[in-house]
C-alpha cells in the first residue's frame, strides 16, 4: 500500500518549482533595490516603508478590503438562500439549476462585465426601467454601486455552488431526527443545517473574498479610472510604472494579510467542527 506514496513525488517537485518558488521570488523582489538583476542585489526595506508611511496607499488598501467584505456579505446573503432552495428542489431541477449557474462562468468574464457597462449606462435599459418608476436621474455606471454589482455578479456563483455542495452532502435523516425530537423548522435550521453547511460557507467566502479584494478590471471598467483599488495599484506598478520591487512589496503585504485572515477563518471552522463532536 505504501508504494502508492511514490506517486506523490513528482508533484512535490512540481509544487516546489511552480508554487513555492514564485512566492519566494516575490519576497526577494520586495526587499531588493530598484533594478531587476538577481546577481547584484542589495537588501532594503524602502518599499515597505514607502507603502506604510503614505496614508493614500493605506486608504486604498482599506477601501479594497472593505469593498471585498461588502461583496462577500452580499454574496453570502444572496447565495445562501439560493443554495438552500436549490438543495431542496427535485434532483433533476437541482442539476439543471447548478448547470445554469455554471454556464455564465464559461462565457468570458470580461465580456459579461462589458455587457454590464451597456446595461448600466446613461440611457441604458436599466436606467429606462428606473425612469419608468420615476427614478430617472440615478447615475449607475462609474459608481461604487456599479463596482459592487460587478463583483457580486462575477463571484456569486462560487458562493452558491460551494454552499450547495455542502448542503447536498447533508444526511436527510439528521433533519428528520431533529424534527422527531421536537425542534421546529427554524430551530432545526439554526442548530443542524447551518452548522453542517459551514464548511461550504467558509469555502464560498474564500472563493469570493480573494478575487474581490484583488480584482482590477471590474473597478476599472465599472468604476471608471476614478475608482482605484489595490489591484489597480499593483497592476500599475508592473504593467505601466515598471516599479516591480514596489509592486512585489504590495503583493507581499496583500498575501500576508490574506493568509492571516484565512487562517483565522479556518480556525473558526475547526473550532466549530470540534464543538460538534463533543
Amino acid at each position, binding site marked *: 500500500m505504501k508504494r502508492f506514496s511514490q506517486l506523490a513525488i513528482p508533484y512535490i517537485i512540481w509544487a516546489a518549482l511552480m508554487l513555492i518558488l514564485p512566492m519566494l521570488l516575490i519576497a526577494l523582489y520586495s526587499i531588493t533595490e530598484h533594478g531587476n538583476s538577481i546577481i547584484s542585489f542589495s537588501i532594503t526595506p524602502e518599499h515597505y516603508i514607502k507603502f506604510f508611511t503614505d496614508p493614500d496607499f493605506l486608504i486604498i488598501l482599506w477601501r479594497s478590503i472593505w469593498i471585498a467584505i461588502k461583496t462577500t456579505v452580499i454574496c453570502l446573503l444572496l447565495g445562501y438562500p439560493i443554495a438552500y432552495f436549490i438543495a431542496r428542489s427535485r434532483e433533476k431541477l437541482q442539476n439543471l439549476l447548478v448547470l445554469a449557474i455554471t454556464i455564465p462562468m464559461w462565457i468570458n468574464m470580461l465580456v459579461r462585465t462589458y455587457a454590464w457597462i*451597456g446595461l448600466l449606462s446613461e440611457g441604458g*435599459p436599466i436606467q429606462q426601467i428606473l425612469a419608468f418608476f420615476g427614478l430617472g436621474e440615478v447615475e449607475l455606471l462609474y459608481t461604487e454601486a456599479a463596482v459592487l454589482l460587478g463583483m457580486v455578479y462575477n463571484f456569486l456563483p462560487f458562493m452558491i455552488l460551494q454552499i450547495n455542495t455542502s448542503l447536498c452532502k447533508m444526511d436527510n435523516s439528521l433533519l428528520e431526527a431533529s424534527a422527531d425530537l421536537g425542534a421546529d423548522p427554524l430551530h432545526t435550521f439554526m442548530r443542524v443545517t447551518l452548522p453542517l453547511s459551514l464548511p461550504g460557507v467558509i469555502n464560498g467566502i474564500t472563493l469570493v473574498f480573494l478575487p474581490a479584494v484583488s480584482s482590477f478590471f471590474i473597478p476599472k471598467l465599472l468604476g471608471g479610472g476614478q475608482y482605484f483599488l489595490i489591484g489597480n495599484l499593483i497592476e500599475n506598478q508592473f504593467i505601466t510604472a515598471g516599479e516591480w520591487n514596489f509592486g512585489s512589496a504590495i503583493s507581499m503585504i496583500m498575501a500576508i494579510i490574506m493568509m492571516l485572515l484565512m487562517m483565522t477563518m479556518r480556525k473558526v471552522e475547526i473550532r466549530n467542527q470540534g464543538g460538534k463532536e463533543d
Partner: protein
Amino acid sequence: MLRKNSRPIGKILMVLMLIFFYLPILYMIVFSFNDSKSLTGFTGFSLRWYQHMLESRDMMEALYTTFGVALAATLISTVVGTISAIGLSRSKKIVRDLLTQVNNLPLMNPEIVTAIGFMLLFITFRVEKGYATMLLAHIAFCIPYVMLSVMPKIRSLDPNLADAAMDLGATPWQALTKVIIPQITPGIISGALIAFTMSVDDFIISYFVTGSGVKNLSIMVYTMSKRVNPSINAVSTLMVVIITIVLLIINLAPGFIAKRQRAAEITKRKMVLPATLTLAVVVVGAITVSGLGARPSALPYAGQTLYLYNWGEYTGENILQDFEAATGATVVMENFDSNEQMYIKVANGEAYDILVPSDYMIQRLISEGLLQELDHSKLNCMDDLTEAVIGLPYDVNNDYSVPYFWGSVGIVYDKTKVSLEDLEAEGYNIFLDEKYRGDIYLYDSERDSFMMALKALGYSMNTEDPDELQAAYDWLVQCVETMKPEIVTDEIIDNMAQGRKAMGLIYSGDAAYVMSENENMGFYMPEGGTNLWSDAMVIPANAKNPDLAHEFINFASDYDGAYDNSSYVGYTSPNQQVMADLSGEGGDFEGINAYLPRTDNPNDEVFVFNDATRKIISNLWSKVKIAASNAN
C-alpha cells in the same frame, strides 16, 4: 438531501437569480446583431460582426487558445492531480500536511499575487513567455482545485481496499485503475469541471504570463482598448450556442439511453450521431484555425513570421491579411494599451519585429539602445509622407522611425450643451468651470492629463520644474474634487458618440470617429497649445526578422495600407495622399476638423522624454486618482 419544498418564495428567488445571471448574456447576444459599432445604442439588425469575427484571424486564434489551453490544462491537471492525491493519501502525515498547505498557496492568495509570482518565475529563468508559459501556469493553478475535490473522496475510501485487491492477485496498476479510481470518479469529474471553469474564464494570471502575441479571449478584450469591437459579442454568442449544444447532448444522452434501454441499439446510434457530429465540428474547426497559418511557398517570405506589437484596434480591417498574401509571411500581432506596458516587455528582452510606440517613448527606446537603425535603402515610402510628421525632435533624421498615425489632443464637446465662446475664453480651464460639474470626462493617461493641466496654467508640457508640476497636480486635484469628472479611457469614444456627457479630453483621431457618428459633437483645441503626438513604426534591436519588418513598414505606409488603416481606425494618416483623400470631398472624414491636426500654433508641443519627470508624473497621477476615489 433535503426535503422537497414547493413554497413560492423559493421559485421567485430562482427566477430572479436566473434573470440576474442571464441578463448581461442576453444583452450581449442582442448587441452581437447590432448594426452600429456602439456597445450601448442599438441601431438596427445586422450580421456584420459575425462576418467580421469569421474574417478576423486574431479572434479565431484567441478562441482557439482559450479552449486549447483550458482543455489541455484540465486534462493534465486532472490526471496529475488525481495521481498525486492518491499518492499523497498514502504519504507520511507531515508530507501530506505540508503539501496541503503549499497547495493552498494559489487558493488562498489573491489572484494577482499568484499571477505576479508566475511572471517573476518565468522572467527570472528566462523562459520565453507565450503559449507554453500560459499552459504551465494554468496547470499549476488547476491542480490544487482537482486535488481539493479528489482528496475527500479518497479519504472516505477504506484504506485496505487496494491491499485487498492486491492480495487477490491484482497488480498495483490494476488495483489503482480498477478499484481506486472508479470509487473516486465523481470527485475526479467535479475536479475536472472546476479546473475547466477556472481556466476558461481566467484573465489575471493569463494576462501576466503571456507573451509572443499569444492571447486568450480575456486578454484580447482587455487590450482591445482603442475601441471594443462588437465582434467580441458575436464570439461570445457563438460560445453560448456551442456550450448549450454540448451540454444538451451530455445531459440528455444518458436520460434517453436509460429510458429506451430496450430499443438500445437504435437509440444509442441516434445519440452517438450528434455527439460525433459535434466532435467533428470542433475538430474541423480546430484544423481550420490552425490551418490558417499554412501559406503557399512561392512567395518571398513564405514560412517566415512577423511579430507586430501594436496598440489594440489600431490596424485596418484587411491590412494584415493583405500583407500575408503579398509576402507569404505570417503576422502575429500582440496588443498593448500603453507605451509603458510595451516598454516593460521590450526592455525585458521579449523579441518583436515591429513596435508602434509614441514619440517620447521612441526617444526613450533610442536612448537606451533598444532600437536598430532603419535601412533607408529598403524603404520606398518616405517621400509619400506629409512634412509635418518628418524630422520631429524625438528622431530628427527618422533614422529609427516611420510615422504610423499622428494627431493632437483636444476637447470633444456637445455643441448643444457647451458654447464655443466658453471654450475659447477658458481653454482647458473649462474643466474647472462648475457650470459643467458632473458632466465631463478626463482621460486616464498621466501624460495627457498633466499636459492639460500644465497648458491650462500656461506652462510648457515638457517642464521639469517641480513647482510647475506641483501646480499642475493641484489643478488636477481641484478638478477631481470639485467637478466630479469620470476618469475613463476609451469608453469616452462610445459615450461621447452617444452624447452622454458635455465634454471630455480626447485624442483627435477618436474625436474624428465620434464626430462621424454624432453630428452634435465638435472638437476644440485650446489656443494655449496641445500635445502634437505621433505613433511611429520602429524595429527593436533584437528583432528576429528586420528584412520583413522593413517590408511591413513600406506596406503600411503605402497608399492602400495607409488608407485601410486610417479609414478603419479614424486616426490621421501620415500618408499625404490618404490624408487629403479622406478629409477631402467625398472622403470618410470630410468636414471633420479633428481629422486634420493643427500645424500652425506655436504653443503646440511634442513630448520629450525625461525619466525623472516621468516618475514624478506617474506618482502624482496615481495620487490624483486616489483623490478622485476619496471625493466620491
